[in-house]
């Protein structure tokens, strides 16, 4: 008995040891701060250095249409950005996974990857140089005679979408490639042989097969977009407020950590709800999606 118990104990100890960094990370840097924030969001300042438990922070959110609007706007624009990214990434992933042969495929993939060698800040500033009124693109439009005066291309909602799609493209392309690569080409050939058109094949063979990849890509892109701070603040103008900016403002500018924490939890709730709704809508399970990609 002792001979067999020792190795089992040993194996369990080793497993624990191997998991320890991940568990420590999860516990100390993710779970603990969230609990702290949860407590913070449920209290209210009643006097200097005096706080009382209350739901006032959440009440403020629901009572003031201002915060509501920004919240809904952020969610809506994130959905649009995710769909645009999918539309753009799908043909790219298809070409890389199915059409390009040998080195061409990896070359194309590297082309997608290269923009990510510089930081998001630099990329976003690059967009600003291109799009600002005295920038490259408006100047080009004038020189080509398309506009009489330089137009301001920066500070619009569309500009934010461009920046967001650009930033998240890679995170959609990668899961799409891996799910498309596993699609057997003979299935498509057989479908053609049986007289199916391109659209039918896409709808009843390619998309069902790639569904987990599509869902995984959409989840990642949606979360990245919803939680993005830099791109909407730099590219967006005076009218385009992103919910993360609200959270920053509450924490840093207003010193109102309680309100900021409540906003943070509302955003967390929103992204969870949206992801769940997306999974339900496409009839998939979260575990499946994550395993297959």
């Amino acid at each position, binding site marked *: 008995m002792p001979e067999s118990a020792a190795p089992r104990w040993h194996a369990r100890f080793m497993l624990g040891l191997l998991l320890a960094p991940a568990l420590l990370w999860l516990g100390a840097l993710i779970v603990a701060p969230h609990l702290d924030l949860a407590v913070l969001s449920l209290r209210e300042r009643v006097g*200097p250095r005096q706080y009382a438990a209350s739901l006032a922070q959440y009440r403020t959110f629901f009572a*003031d249409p201002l915060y509501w609007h920004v919240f809904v706007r952020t969610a809506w624009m994130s959905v649009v950005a995710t769909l645009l990214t999918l539309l753009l990434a799908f043909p790219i992933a298809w070409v890389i996974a199915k059409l390009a042969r040998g080195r061409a495929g990896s070359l194309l993939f590297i082309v997608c990857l290269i923009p990510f060698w510089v930081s998001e800040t630099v990329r976003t500033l690059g967009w600003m140089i291109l799009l600002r009124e005295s920038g490259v693109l408006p100047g080009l439009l004038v020189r080509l005679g398309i506009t009489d005066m330089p137009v301001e291309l920066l500070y619009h909602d569309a500009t934010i979408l461009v920046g967001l799609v650009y930033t998240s493209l890679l995170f959609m392309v990668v899961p799409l490639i891996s799910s498309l690569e596993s699609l057997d080409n003979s299935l498509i050939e057989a479908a053609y042989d049986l007289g199916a058109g391109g659209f039918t094949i896409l709808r009843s063979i390619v998309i069902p097969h790639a569904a987990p990849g599509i869902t995984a890509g959409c989840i990642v892109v949606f979360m990245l977009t919803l939680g993005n701070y830099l791109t909407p603040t730099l590219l967006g103008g005076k009218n385009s407020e992103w919910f993360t900016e609200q959270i920053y403002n509450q924490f840093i500018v207003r010193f109102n950590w309680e309100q900021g924490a409540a906003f943070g939890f509302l955003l967390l709730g929103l992204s969870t709800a949206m992801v769940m709704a997306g999974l339900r809508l496409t009839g998939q399970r979260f575990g499946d999606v994550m395993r297959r990609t």
Partner: protein
Amino acid sequence: MRQICAILALALFTAGAAQAAQKLRILTWADYVPADVIAAFEKETGITVEVTLSNNEEIISKLRATGGAGYDLAQPSQDRITGPQREFGIYKPIDLTQVNLQQFQPALLDIVKRNATLDGKLYALPYLWGTDGLVANVKRAKVADYGDLCRADLKGKTSIRLRRPTLMAFAFAAGKDPFSLYGDPKAYAALMEQVGATLSACKGNVKFFYDNKDQLLNGIRSGEIVAAMMWDTGGWSLNRENPDVQFIIPRSGALGWLDTFALPARGRNDAAAYAWINFTMRPAMAARITKSVGSFSAANGTWPLLDPRLKAQFTAAFPDSALKAIHWYPAIPPGLEEIEGRVLDRVKAAN
């Protein structure tokens, strides 16, 4: 073996302590601590200086997050000291016996004493000051007061900052004195609502709400912005590049800001902080700082040492009457910033 370990540990510990004693960590604004002044200070005292760049709100938030640890010296504005101190206890009182008070201009020292004293203890000393007013390209825009930024002929060519100084400026421009209402939150809220409505209506006129100084400077340099609410020396430095760009004192008066030295509650090296304060307030050093930053030092005796061009710009902009008309920010009572925050949020969300 154990002895060796103990000796090693002791050696490491003392080395660490010695190094900590030789370091001064400053939390301050961009450009406030010029590299050549740091070099001179290090040469004279052997203390190395570590600078972290920030702004008023971030200074307070960073110190709040650590309970006042992580830095040995901070430079918030004089009106933002007693409020956060009362709320978060992030500073410690200044030990006046460690400071050479003769080096400070009495008038500026008085302003700080009035606004940064809590329960009989002084929490700050003045460092640099300047004013907010208007900057315009006079060939392309004629402006005399903040309200002119909202004039139809300047549509899409002006810029303001969506922060509290703008609320104050537009309140003064509307003929009201927001500072006199600091003690009356209800009336203050009503005034802020009114200013917020003005700003919301003006929003279409504004090209962007600037968030950092380079964004505004580039906007004016490129000609995208022809008039903006801006600080004086920013206007004067643009003026040196392009004489058409000028700093203009608004009819309703300039807003005077005064940034300070304050000691974070859990700073580790007060002695170095006091040495730094005394060092940077020497007239020669203060003049060097003014030359490099562009803003005026609170030190005595710098005037004869200043760049003649800056002196000329200053005297042209501020005749005695204008200097007297500067509105200095009083300490902000608690609760007001929440009112202002709501109003600013609403302006940002308005269409």
